[in-house]
């Protein structure tokens, strides 16, 4: 009971502090402090609830337990990180987003392709990963190549849809201007349609950044070498080592957020002109 009261109290205080901070002038420090404080309160509540309600550690371990396991297993976590994130997710992300971008430009260029490929593409891309993963593992083997393939399949659709939409998002007058310059297709693409598409492209890149990680991890459930975050998670669930499972999840969350944040930073630099970046 004490712990539950403690959790609620922490919540109230954390939110109050954040509201105060947010109301003040926004600096880089408050921008960082607010989500951190918010996260801390969440964690404190979690700790309080687990202890207060005496939840079994094989169901949900307390954050303190996860932290201890994290500190004790950095070598395993690092090995898994390299296998899953660097080899699987990143290579798949680059390949998938790159090819989706290229296809989007192709599709946008040739109306025939747009009419033909987009409906079919929508269909193909709707193949659920869970079904694709075992097939891709069968085709590309157990190691990271099959994970990258799963990531490619997963990020392709969101990236394609966004890029195609973005390429069509310039205004009529902006396009007319290009017409008066008798600008060719490539010039219009480079000088007008790509810059105008950037807000959408980054939308796609951001969504894809979280999908990539999930894809790489999920694919490991369907066969893998004996390292990797997905392997560790599924194996540890079977062993009821939930603290290690959550330590891996923490890694995934940190990496994923950092990845997303990185993309968002580049977005801010590239699309500084868009009203949504100037609010």
């Amino acid at each position, binding site marked *: 009971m004490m712990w539950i009261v403690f959790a609620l109290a922490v919540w109230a205080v954390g939110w109050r502090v954040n509201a105060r901070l947010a109301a003040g002038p926004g600096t880089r420090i408050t921008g960082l402090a607010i989500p951190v404080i918010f996260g801390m309160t969440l964690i404190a509540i979690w700790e309080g609830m687990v202890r207060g309600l005496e939840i079994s550690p094989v169901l949900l371990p307390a954050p303190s337990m996860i932290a201890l396991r994290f500190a004790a297993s950095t070598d395993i976590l690092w090995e898994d990180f390299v296998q899953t994130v660097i080899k699987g997710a990143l290579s798949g992300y680059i390949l998938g987003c790159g090819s989706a971008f290229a296809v989007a430009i192709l599709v946008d260029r040739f109306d025939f392709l747009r009419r033909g490929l987009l409906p079919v593409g929508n269909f193909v891309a709707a193949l659920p990963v869970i079904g694709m993963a075992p097939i891709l593992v069968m085709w590309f083997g157990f190691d990271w190549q099959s994970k990258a393939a799963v990531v490619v399949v997963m990020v392709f659709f969101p990236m394609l849809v966004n890029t195609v939409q973005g390429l069509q998002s310039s*205004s009529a*007058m*902006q396009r*007319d*201007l*290009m*017409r*008066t*310059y*008798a*600008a060719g297709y490539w*010039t219009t693409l480079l*000088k*007008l349609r790509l*810059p*105008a598409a*950037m807000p959408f492209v980054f939308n796609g890149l951001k969504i894809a950044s979280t999908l990539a990680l999930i894809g790489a991890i999920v694919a490991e459930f369907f066969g893998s070498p004996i390292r990797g975050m997905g392997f560790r998670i599924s194996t540890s669930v079977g062993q009821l080592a939930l603290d290690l499972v959550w330590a891996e999840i923490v890694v995934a969350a940190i990496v994923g957020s950092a990845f997303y944040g990185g993309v968002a930073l580049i977005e801010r630099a590239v*699309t*500084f*002109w*868009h009203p949504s970046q*100037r609010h």
Partner: protein
Amino acid sequence: MTNATVISANRLSLTFETNDGPVHALKDVSLDIDKGEFVSFIGPSGCGKTTFLRCMADLEHPTSGEITVNGVSAEEARRMRAYGYVFQAAGLYPWRTIGGNVRLPLEIMGYEKPDMDARVDRVLDLVELSGFERKYPWQLSGGMQQRASIARALAFDADILLMDEPFGALDEIVRDHLNEQLLNLWARTEKTIAFVTHSIPEAVYLSTKIVVMSPRPGRITDVIESPLPRDRPLDIRDTPEFLEVAHRVREGLRAGHIDD
């Protein structure tokens, strides 16, 4: 100065289909513009001035009738980069600075880098925006944006200038200044200029020919050849000839409105 016809419209009509019925933006419009002419279009709002200019620039396709530019179709002329176009709204690209926006057509047409810089400087100076090269469009006032878009159209050497109310958002002094500059440019380069305006004095001061239009359906009600000399100091605006022409234009305009 030769008298070759540069733009020739022959019984041009254009109808927009809208959700509640067709709008006859242009109906049976015929007009010839000779090389080196300065033609102003004036008429109540909605009478089809912009639409007509857009037809010349191959931005709109007439429903019927014909338009030729330099003896070829409007489309071919566009491909040959025969026009500079100033839109009614500034339409600057938000991701480019003012300098970058003016440089855009030059980049597209493949000008050399030093030439490009010189031109950007010159035209920005012409519209009194030196010092604003590195600002972004949303950091400028409405009039400044409009001037930047004029600079953009003047930066490259098009034989034909199509200008849709370029000076609408400018104050009288700047306007006078730019009117003079434009006349200088025109005299110097023998460009052919089609110019939409709402100001009668401006139309009379600038043009060799004034086209009065009226709406619903959009058509030409009067074409006035200006008797004024090509050389025009600002104070020509106080001469009786000037006032006489202005009067005729005003009458034409008023007729269009009553008609309505």
